[in-house]
């Protein structure tokens, strides 16, 4: 069954068409219009790892469209702790639901689930692998601000090695002809095979450890969290993390329309002083997770989003 495992599962035309659907669904996501396009459908939320935004926005998206959700719940009290294989878990949930959203600590788990299931699988993150539904909401946010996805200067910063959101996003950006700059400490550089893939697409990839030097030319700065546990000792972490912090005063030379994004949660990498600047987009970005996931679920379940969404067809 087709699913969304990596961004390679969607063509550029499909991405644009899903983003268009998402845009029309905005009033539904905000609760201004009730449009039960997925009434009678059940989403299985299988989060084998902690998640707040991804899990909640999937749940909100399904409920705003009139569908229902069943959750795996706490992994510690599920059959997984008894040693059930992913294959068996998927067989079971496949029978209960119409579509599955999944996050798993093991890389490749989403493709594995997709090969095991009859219902579509949406990859909500597999180890340090991919996170394509996050990419769709990121692209939605970028297009919302800049009116296009093409030819933008995008800086991806922070933990590029383990940060799965930037793996999926960089693939998509390059396909739309964006110039991508990777700003990260040496030890957290983008994995070699991803850089190789991007170059195959004809991208010129710039890798640097200087984030602040990239600000003035950027149209988008995409920050990620540097996780303490990736470092052998606290001093090393403090040294590295300190170089990847943004505060309002760093943005004086930035383009007026430059936006700052973050998949959240943030820790120290974006100072609260940035929140009130014209550049901050991370909270809108988190909200956009609902529309992007609404549009994706409709597409994978073969439900057309109406060309116009007004009072007719919906219940206001």
């Amino acid at each position, binding site marked *: 069954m087709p699913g969304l495992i990596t961004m390679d599962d969607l063509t550029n035309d499909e991405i644009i068409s899903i983003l268009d659907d998402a845009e029309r669904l905005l009033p539904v996501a905000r609760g201004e219009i009730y449009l039960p396009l997925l009434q009678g459908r059940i989403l299985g939320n299988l989060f084998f790892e902690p998640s707040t935004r991804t899990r909640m926005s999937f749940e909100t998206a399904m409920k705003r469209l009139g569908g229902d959700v069943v959750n795996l719940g706490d992994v510690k009290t599920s059959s997984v702790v008894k040693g059930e*294989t992913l*294959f068996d878990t998927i067989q079971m949930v496949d029978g209960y639901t119409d579509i599955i959203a999944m996050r798993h600590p*093991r*890389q490749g788990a989403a493709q594995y689930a997709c090969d*095991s299931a009859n219902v579509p699988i949406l990859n909500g993150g597999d*180890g340090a692998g991919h996170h394509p539904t996050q990419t769709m909401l990121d692209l939605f946010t970028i297009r919302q601000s800049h009116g296009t996805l093409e030819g933008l200067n995008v800086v991806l910063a922070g933990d590029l090695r383990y940060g799965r959101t930037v793996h999926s996003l960089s693939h998509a950006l390059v396909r739309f002809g964006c110039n991508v700059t990777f700003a990260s400490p040496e030890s957290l550089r983008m994995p070699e095979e991803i850089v190789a893939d991007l170059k195959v697409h004809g991208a010129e990839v710039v890798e640097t450890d200087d984030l602040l030097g990239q600000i003035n030319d950027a149209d988008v700065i995409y920050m990620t969290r540097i996780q303490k546990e990736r470092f052998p000792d606290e001093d090393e972490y403090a040294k590295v993390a300190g170089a990847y912090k943004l505060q309002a005063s760093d943005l004086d030379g930035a383009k007026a329309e430059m936006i700052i994004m973050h998949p959240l949660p943030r820790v120290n990498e974006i100072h609260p002083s940035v929140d009130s600047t014209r550049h901050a987009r991370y909270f809108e970005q988190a909200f956009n997770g609902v529309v992007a996931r609404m549009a994706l679920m409709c597409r994978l379940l073969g439900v057309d989003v109406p060309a116009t969404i007004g009072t007719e067809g919906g219940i206001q």
Partner: protein
Amino acid sequence: MSQEANMRRVTAIKNGTVIDHVPAGKALSVLKMLGIGGDMSNPVSLVMNVPSKKMGGKDIIKVEDRELTQHELDRLALVAPDASVAIIRAYSVAEKLDINLTDEVVNVARCTFSNCITENPREPLPHRLIVTKRDPLELRCRYCGKKQDIEALVDNLI
């Protein structure tokens, strides 16, 4: 040194399989890939690091009284894609076989990435490695997408 001299380093076999043009030093990996070990009763002869015009150096393997199947030989594509294989009957070459590298290598070796979902030996789906480049050989796991370390794959044979 001539081809004949190379071949005479071990005696000619009456019936069985000869695998020639194995990259120098890879003969033991080839035996491992074919599941040929000490518990097998058929005689097996090995010559390693003999000079070769084509390859500089090469290994040769002779397995007596066993005709390897095409399916078994295709497993060798991971370590010896250019090896030449002859089936011997009554001291003569009865058949010459090629090693075929298919687009996907299924259930030959486990992915080498330690955090791949296929690390759990109880997961039942087949191990699938996709050939993404042929020269030099490059494989990626269908599931986790990680590029495989070919040397390490030999230790992950199924």
